[in-house]
């Protein structure tokens, strides 16, 4: 078993109204000094069996084809170590 995480973020040049709304709420709550907020998505994929480079390439394909829209979003893939797994 392996957990692979895909983070999807709007490209920097794409307006993020949700991030802006969150940012706007911060001073009202008394939090100062935050100069910007961008909101994204995190996907956690639980994979069966060994995590091979071929499987990882498949996750990249999933991220590109379904999880993100390359017109407006970038994605990043990383493998997450399971809690309690041997170091």
């Amino acid at each position: 078993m392996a957990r692979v995480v895909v983070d999807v973020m709007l490209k920097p040049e794409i307006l993020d109204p949700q991030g802006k709304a969150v940012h706007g709420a911060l001073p009202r709550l008394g939090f100062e000094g935050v100069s910007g907020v961008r909101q994204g998505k995190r996907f956690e994929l639980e994979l069966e069996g060994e995590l091979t480079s071929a499987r990882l390439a498949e996750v990249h394909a999933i991220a590109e084809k379904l999880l993100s829209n390359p017109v407006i979003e970038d994605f990043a893939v990383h493998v997450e170590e399971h809690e309690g797994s041997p170091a």
Partner: protein
Amino acid sequence: MKVGVVTFPGSLDDVDARRAVTVAGGEPVPLWHGDHDLRGVDAVVLPGGFSYGDYLRCGAISRFSPVMTEVVAAAGTGLPVLGICNGFQILCESHLLPGALIRNDHQKFVCRDQRLRIENNRTAWTSAYDADAEVTVVLKNGEGSYVADEDTLDRLEGEGRVVARYLDVNPNGSLRDIAGITNERGNVVGLMPHPEHAVEDLTGPGTDGLGFFTSVLRSLVG
């Protein structure tokens, strides 16, 4: 002339779209998202709504539904396809049209009667309009802000592929006030406002939207 109207789980405006086809003089054919064939229709409308609950991204799941495989293939051979609102989002996710639709810049759902200019009346869906006709139809969206990179926008403008542009106000932050675009061939049109809600005087702001449906019937006869 048979015009298919696809119903996805979460579609809202499929019934109005079918009614608009009838009012225009065509025969509407209900299509289901799980269908593997288009039942011999001469054109397809992807209606507005919140297909698959807008999960992931608007239109992202619908794009992979069985019926869309058929629609994409048929669009490639010239079948007229009109995507309205959520349908426009599905067409962009399917890569039948360039760009994407993101959340309105002002963060609120917008619902209003919207003036548009029909800037390309050479598509399968706009030939009934005069050049640069100004029309009023319903607009209602939460994620209707059209975006694309500068090169794509320049190409759309240069090739006359901006089908409709917002007049008076830009209701959602769409780049260059773009309300609708077409593909190179002019058979696929995506439109954020809702012409199917403006086909009868009893409801909506008038009958300015009817032209989209009479256009396609005329193009099929011609």
